[in-house]
């Protein structure tokens, strides 16, 4: 059986992301306090809570669900992660179009579009110690494993995101608030990469559950 990515999967992804962010909000804020302005967990918690509240009804295709969530995140987050994650979800939603049941390949393309949206809006590249260091390898791993089905591809994406996030520790930040610290930003896990791991983990959790 090939489980597709449906409207219910999209909504489950956003709900699970909100849960994981809420549970880890203090850790994200602590990571951000070390090299940023110390509001990442708080901001994302507010943004994803708003996204859950904005989830449309079940008749909306999965792309529309992600677009609605992205819009709420842009509107309510308050920090730079809002426009970035919001744009990512809107781009992913647009890439899915009107399809009611996306395949693993289509979802891989949507994740790739999401990462491109973040790169274009923020102007960062992999290696700059940002969320892209987790999300870029995650989207690549998902796409490379798409033939194994959505849950397996999502698990591969989680592994790649975790590895990518951990690799930000020795990096010197070149974008965002942490870049003002120069060399002193090295030795810390990037908070954006840390929250990106949660979003990818939420996708894996949600698609594994809706498949069952």
């Amino acid at each position, binding site marked *: 059986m090939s489980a597709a990515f449906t409207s219910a999967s999209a909504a489950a992804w956003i709900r699970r992301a909100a849960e994981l962010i809420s549970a880890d909000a203090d850790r994200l804020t602590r990571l951000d306090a070390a090299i940023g302005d110390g*509001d990442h967990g708080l*901001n994302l918690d*507010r943004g994803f809570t708003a996204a859950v509240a904005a989830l449309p009804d079940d008749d909306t295709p999965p792309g529309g669900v992600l677009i609605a969530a992205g819009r709420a995140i*842009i*509107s*309510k*987050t*308050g*920090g*730079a*992660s*809002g*426009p*970035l994650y919001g*744009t990512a979800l809107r781009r992913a939603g647009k890439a899915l179009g009107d399809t009611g049941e996306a395949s693993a390949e289509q979802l891989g393309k949507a994740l790739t579009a999401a990462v491109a949206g973040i790169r274009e*809006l*923020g102007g960062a590249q992999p290696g700059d110690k940002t969320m892209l260091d987790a999300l870029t390898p995650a989207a690549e791993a998902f796409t490379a494993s798409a033939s194994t089905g959505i849950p397996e591809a999502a698990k591969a994406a989680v592994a790649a995101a975790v590895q990518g996030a951990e690799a930000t520790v020795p990096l010197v930040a070149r974008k*965002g*608030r942490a870049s003002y610290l120069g060399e002193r930003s090295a030795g810390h896990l990037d908070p954006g990469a840390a929250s990106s791991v949660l979003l990818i983990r939420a996708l894996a959790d949600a698609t594994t559950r809706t498949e069952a």
Partner: protein
Amino acid sequence: MVGIVIISHSRPLAEGAAELAREMGVGKAVVEAAGGGPDGGLGTSPDLVEQAVATADDGDGVLLLADIGSSVLAARLLVEDYEGRAVLADAPLVEGAVAAASAAAAGVDLDGVRAAAESARDLHKR
């Protein structure tokens, strides 16, 4: 007349820069402030930015000035959604706003107002 919107993490900073720019635009320039986050504290509210742009836009376009981080990202997003009628100045906030308001009050078009704001980057102080 080209409208001007000032986007800052801080509401008092956005309002203060707007006040100064209005003064330099001899009271004619339309300068709207979009300061602070969705909860009223420090941050950026894309909703406030959208409202300020709608207020500042009389059909001749709107120039955006943004301070840092999420304010810049919110401005870039709005420019994308506004399709040509709003542009973001690559300029320092206060100096750019003052230059833009002066140009806007003189009836300069959107490209010219942006150029005026961006010329403020070359105003050296020592």
